[in-house]
């Protein structure tokens, strides 16, 4: 009657083949999960595609427009046409070529700014958050110093040293980066301050890991998310700052050009020759918009704020 003896096998086995985690779902590595969420974010994906198109066009530049940036065509002051997609300027330059060239420079400067500011800011934040104490106080005072100074003014002051000097784009990039690293330093410091109290850090230390190892292999990878998001958004912000500088006359100097310069130069002609002003501006805005959407999509993919269900 009592056939309820335990099955001869003993312990019921989990289905072989699948890697099942506690919830019976396939365990996904965190980065794969983030990528999957990002891909499902339609707006972010669309922006990424548009951004890639814009950037490719900008970097292909003259190969697609068949004009050279310094080529003077006989058509001056022409509105957009099939011959000149973005029209021409006062002396016959093809605007589309100029815009693409400007975009190249703007993007390059912005990428440099983001790279420099991110590395510097993350380093400062990491050191301050990990070592705390005197080092933290000193670093944070310096950060506060930079934050307190009205950045636009100092940017202008610094940029004025390189005003009008040809080839100054690198200097401009450095100047902008000098005032862009502070927010990230604070964020990384905050993350390190809380992460370092976690058990896995204690465990690593108990195993004899050195400080640099703990920072590089444990704390930093866990802080990667806000760093990446921040860096992405910084690219857009840098483009906008460079534009502001160029408008005030302190930006990238000829013979180089940037989107900011183009828009600045065109702003006086906004009524008479609107294509010289609106079109470079729209190109710039579109690039920044796409970068911002991608950055926001990344932020959502890394930390989705859906309502959690608690059973």
């Amino acid at each position: 009657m009592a056939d309820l003896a335990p099955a001869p096998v003993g312990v019921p086995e989990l289905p072989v083949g699948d890697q099942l985690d506690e919830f019976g779902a396939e365990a996904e590595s965190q980065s794969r999960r983030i990528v999957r969420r990002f891909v499902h974010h339609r707006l972010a994906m669309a922006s990424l595609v548009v951004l890639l198109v814009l950037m490719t066009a900008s970097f292909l530049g003259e190969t697609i427009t068949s004009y050279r940036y310094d080529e003077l065509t006989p058509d001056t002051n022409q509105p957009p046409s099939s011959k000149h997609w973005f029209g021409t300027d006062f002396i016959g330059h093809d605007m589309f070529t100029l815009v693409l060239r400007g975009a190249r420079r703007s993007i390059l400067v912005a990428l440099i700014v983001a790279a420099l500011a991110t590395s510097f800011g993350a380093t400062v934040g990491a050191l301050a958050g990990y070592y705390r104490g005197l080092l933290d106080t000193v670093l944070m005072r310096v950060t506060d110093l930079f934050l307190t100074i009205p950045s636009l003014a100092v940017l202008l002051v610094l940029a004025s040293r390189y005003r009008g000097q040809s080839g100054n784009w690198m200097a401009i990039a450095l100047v902008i980066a000098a005032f862009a690293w502070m927010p990230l330093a604070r964020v990384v410091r905050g993350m390190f301050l809380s992460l370092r109290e976690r058990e896995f850090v204690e465990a690593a230390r108990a195993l004899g890991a050195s400080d640099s190892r703990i920072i590089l292999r444990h704390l930093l990878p866990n802080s990667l998310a806000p760093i990446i998001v921040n860096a992405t958004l910084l690219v857009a912000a840098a483009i906008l700052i460079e534009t502001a500088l160029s408008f005030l006359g302190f930006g990238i100097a000829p013979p180089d050009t940037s989107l900011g310069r183009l828009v600045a130069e065109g702003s006086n002609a906004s009524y008479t020759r609107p294509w010289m002003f609106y079109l470079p501006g729209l190109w710039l805005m579109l690039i920044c918009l796409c970068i911002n959407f991608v950055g926001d999509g990344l932020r959502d993919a890394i930390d989705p704020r859906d309502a959690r269900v608690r059973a």
Partner: protein
Amino acid sequence: MSGEAPGPGPSGGASAEPVLVVEDLTVDFATPDGPVHAVRGVSFTVDAEAVVGIVGESGSGKSVTMMAVMGLLPRTATVKGSVRFRGEEILGLPDKQLRRYRGRKLAMIFQDPLTSLNPVFTVGAQIAEAIRVHNDVKRSAAMERAVELLDLVGIPNAAKRARQYPHEFSGGMRQRAMIAMSIANDPDVLIADEPTTALDVTIQAQILDVLERAQQAVSSAIVLITHDLGVVAGVADRVMVMYAGRAVEQGLVDDVFLRPRHPYTLGLLESLPRLDAEGQERLTPIVGAPPSLLHPPTGCPFHPRCRFVREMCSEVIPELRFVGGLGQRSACHYAEELEALEVEPT
């Protein structure tokens, strides 16, 4: 399933009408990956002044069940079934009407008292708010009552404390304050969702004590949600064991704990370390892991982990049915055979 059980009624008002009757409650959440079946056809009753424990692991649906009763689930949840408070159907009532029950007839306290109290208002003000929402009294009168309540739950210097903010209280005191807030309007049912989980073990006993005292002060029933069997054994009259959104066993605490009639309950009891164990015995965990609520197993939800599993278990969902004792029910096809085996927790 609501077949009547033979035998005398449960403790508390013997022939009194049950205060809360839940029938066939189902809760589904809409998620991007598909519907999650958090609660699947749960039924139980709570009698006046009784203490009912709901036991289960994370993901069993125990919290969601009571949140559904209170109508506190987000919009992504679809709730079906019946919830009757003193005979009146409250499931599906519009918020405006349900509000009259919440905090007055049905009160609920939650797991983490730190995040459950608003950090920018004083504790006294928050208790007073609970009073004023349901009673037309002056603020000063409500504050006085709040101080009385804080005193009732054993907070020293109640008058001074009432003017302090939650972050100035210790964890145990915060939970006491939450309890005070919940009994402010003499509720008929006090639902405590894992009230001691976030607290130190030493404080746990105190809080359970406070809970009992509060219950007696306002003559309410208690529904105690927990994963801790010890808590249930000490405090509850009846217990319901939940697994994967279903009730798998119900009955008097003594019956269920001494004579479990479901393999899961058996497993839970066996995995507890016992003070009276002879020699050095290994702990017996339940193998495997809780199932996905997105794609629950076919048939009995426990069958992948059950050591008594048979063919029918993976095909037919067992119904919760009467298996003996004083209203003990089990959702296992072979509950009688468990009894016959006289399997008891070793």
